[in-house]
């Protein structure tokens, strides 16, 4: 993103608060925060499987809008499609148990934060399967995660 041609004045507005990517990130944070909160509100009355059913109905318009924006053109990679569909199935299973956790009387903030710890598994699997190396930051992150899990189990 940074140009090395010396046109720093032009590039500068793309950093920090003025950057478009920053605001998209904020939209993401607000949307996912809203998703978690509404998931809890719905789960107070609706059982997890029905929550997952309704949640999926909500995702369909966005999927269709993305498909329309691409004029129906999708890459024809069988492996990519398999990973994508598998992602949906696993995300659905994770969503189902999240709704189940919210359906109990557990603390909403704690459940939301605890379930956001999923990068632990991604990082460990990336080390085991993709042979990626753990950086110092990730090691410290895993330690903090371990401490939080112990605290949550108290």
């Amino acid at each position: 993103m940074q140009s090395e041609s010396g046109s720093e004045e032009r590039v500068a507005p793309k950093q920090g608060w003025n950057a478009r990517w920053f605001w998209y990130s904020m939209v993401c944070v607000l949307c996912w925060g809203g998703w978690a909160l509404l998931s809890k509100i719905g789960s107070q009355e609706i059982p997890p499987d029905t929550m997952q059913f309704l949640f999926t109905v909500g995702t369909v318009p966005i999927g269709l809008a993305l498909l329309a924006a691409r004029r129906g053109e999708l890459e024809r990679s069988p492996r990519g499609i398999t990973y994508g569909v598998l992602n949906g199935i696993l995300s659905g299973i994770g969503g189902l148990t999240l709704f189940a956790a919210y359906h109990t009387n557990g603390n909403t903030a704690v459940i939301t934060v605890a379930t956001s710890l999923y990068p632990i598994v991604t990082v460990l699997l990336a080390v085991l399967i993709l042979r990626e190396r753990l950086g110092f930051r990730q090691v410290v992150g895993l330690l903090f995660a371990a401490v939080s899990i112990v605290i949550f189990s108290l």
Partner: protein
Amino acid sequence: MHFAPWFLYSVITVVAWGIVGLLQKLSTNHLSAESSLIWLVVGFVAMEPLFYPGKALFHYSTWSMAAALVSGVLNALGAWALFAALKNGGKASIVSPLTALYPLVVILLVPIVLHESITKVQLAGVSCALVAVVLLSA
């Protein structure tokens, strides 16, 4: 150690979504981020027959049903915004930890919306977990 029911459910969520994180890395080697999201929705829809509640669907309050539906819309919109951030010059090493902070919205709104509070011990756990998520997402 005693594990509350919410904790055990949360562990399954963490494992399932953790695998998704890995598959997401692999799928974007073959598909664009948008296509990946479209196929993810296809995966969601493929499981709908398992969760179809039948007539029981109409027994719930409009408010709860609306919350469930809108939660789906917001989840998919959030994923689209994440991809848009990455497409518009955001570095994954910054955007991923930044967007991983979405639980903060819940922490701030829960006392107002649901009148829930957390204990000091829970607050310590939440703080450690947020630091962990930011460090691990980068």
